[in-house]
């Protein structure tokens, strides 16, 4: 796969589904055992072009997510490399027992791709929001969880999944014309966080496409004289604890996620920090324990304090009472 800046700009314009579609075309050539399974989401997942090129390697199971996950596991057991793609919400909660049985317990190497994670389809209401998916899947052993920060990282994580020997859940957020965190190619490695900014006062640890907002928030805080480092914790499980260790000298650690503040990235980081004797204070920014009313993506992010200004304000407020 070529990661030229023009390709990266194109993926950014296309958004998550278009970028998955582009990655799928590459996967089609590099792994003949790769198949895409979906629950009436071939079009919404950007897989039409792949289907046209490889009609036998897209299996649409209709609106039946439980069957989707188990069927994929059956194919994985026979040596195929199945990607099961549908809404994050329906993969992680509707089919959770199937995920537990087949990916967790039996370790079938299925690659789950949850489209429209977080508030990406928030206009459709809480049924289509996924703000508990990371918590649900994180509680199940043997599943690696990745939330890419931009469309380049989305492509990289999907490509990494092709050769990954194990079960995975890749959670897409973001939209068309999604801003890029990375202007140039970089090294992506599952389980290895990426340091994006340096600052000794505060460490902001983000995941998913909110990492961009974390970077903007750090710039806003810098204008106020507050220096923040920013870490892209694209892999939430296994958590890169070395990356957290590297910021233990900060006075405050902040987690930012498009997810409930319970059990997701913030939960994972707080679990780790609780094992450290003199850990810095922790501020978890995310969705409070409630279901937001349906709304547009930008509206929901702002309402939940997840836009750059909202993040900067929350951090600034906490910083003021440290």
């Amino acid at each position: 796969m070529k990661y030229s800046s023009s390709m990266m700009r194109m993926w950014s314009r296309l958004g998550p589904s278009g970028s998955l579609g582009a990655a799928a075309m590459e996967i089609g050539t590099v792994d003949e055992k790769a198949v895409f399974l979906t629950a009436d989401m071939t079009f919404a997942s950007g897989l039409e072009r792949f289907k046209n090129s490889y009609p036998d390697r897209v299996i649409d199971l209709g609106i039946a997510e439980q069957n989707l996950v188990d069927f994929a596991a059956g194919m994985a057991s026979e040596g195929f490399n199945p990607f099961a793609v549908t809404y994050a919400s329906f993969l992680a909660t509707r089919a959770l027992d199937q995920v537990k049985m087949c990916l967790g317990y039996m370790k079938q190497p299925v690659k789950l791709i949850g489209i429209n994670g977080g508030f990406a389809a928030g206009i459709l209401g809480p049924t289509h929001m996924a703000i508990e998916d990371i918590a649900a899947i994180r509680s199940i052993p043997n599943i690696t969880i990745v939330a890419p920060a931009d469309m380049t990282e989305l492509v990289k994580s999907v490509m990494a999944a092709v050769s990954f020997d194990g079960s995975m859940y890749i959670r897409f957020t973001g939209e068309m014309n999604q801003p890029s965190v990375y202007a140039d190619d970089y090294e992506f490695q599952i389980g290895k966080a990426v340091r994006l900014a340096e600052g000794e006062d505060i460490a902001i640890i983000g995941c998913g496409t909110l990492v961009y907002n974390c970077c903007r928030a750090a710039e806003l805080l810098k204008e106020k004289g507050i220096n923040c480092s920013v870490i892209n914790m694209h892999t939430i499980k296994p958590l890169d604890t070395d990356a957290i260790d590297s910021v233990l000298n900060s006075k405050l650690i902040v987690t930012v996620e498009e997810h409930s503040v319970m059990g997701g990235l913030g939960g994972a980081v707080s679990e780790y920090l609780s094992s450290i004797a003199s850990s810095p204070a922790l501020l978890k920014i995310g969705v409070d324990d409630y279901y937001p009313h349906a709304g547009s993506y930008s509206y929901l992010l702002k309402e939940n304090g997840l836009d750059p200004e909202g993040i900067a304000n929350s951090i600034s407020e906490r910083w003021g009472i440290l």
Partner: protein
Amino acid sequence: MDIQAIAKEIRKDVIRMTYAAGAQGAHIGGSLSMCEIMAVLYHEVMRIDANDPLNDDRDRFILSKGHGAIAMFAALKSIGLITDEELMSYKHDGSIITAHPTYMPDKGMEFASGSLGQGLSIGAGVAMALKMKNKSPQVYVLVGDGECDEGSIWEAAASAAHLGLDNLVCIVDKNRLQYDGPTDEVMNMGSLKDKFIAFGWDAYDVDGHDCKALTDVFKTAHDKPLAVICETVKGKGVSFIEGNYRWHNASLNEEQFNQAMAEQEA
């Protein structure tokens, strides 16, 4: 050994395992109902080699009604994949012979089960994969009639017909009892045969304790996925267990054990 005799040996092992489990008991009722099905599959129908249990050309058996585990374990013993010593370690701490099968393909346990309603979907995925690999094995999935309450069974049924999985066989152990009582009273599903046919399958009713009839129906040519609805008796072969839903999961005392074993020789 003729097939009926093999079924009897499986039934005796089910009784022995239940007794060996002591006060913990076992899912004896639904295991006794499937002894002939197991004997026929493992000794008349399936291609499976105990010396090469992972051979890609083997037929696949998936026990979806995980509580029927002891009958499957007894069948795996009958082909030499597990030992009698392993069998008698049933439910002992640290044993591989557990209340519900774990994932241990090299021991013939193709998939774990215990969470009902999943085996047919997994089997459909396996059947699809075999077709894509141009492999000829059949995939046999054994479900319970109570298990057919699970909606996911019907998601799988729809997809198997839609995808033309003529290498998939769903065997229903229709013993007419589930945990809370008769299936017709707990959740009346009507005719399972008619349901499978409506979903686009070939389907047959058969006497699930008639080895010859079972063999014939499993070997019936089919160009659609095949459902075999086996009319069985829960607790079959042990007079005081037959047809009594209280024996879904229960233990045997010494007297009951002796009587149950004696009835096998009658």
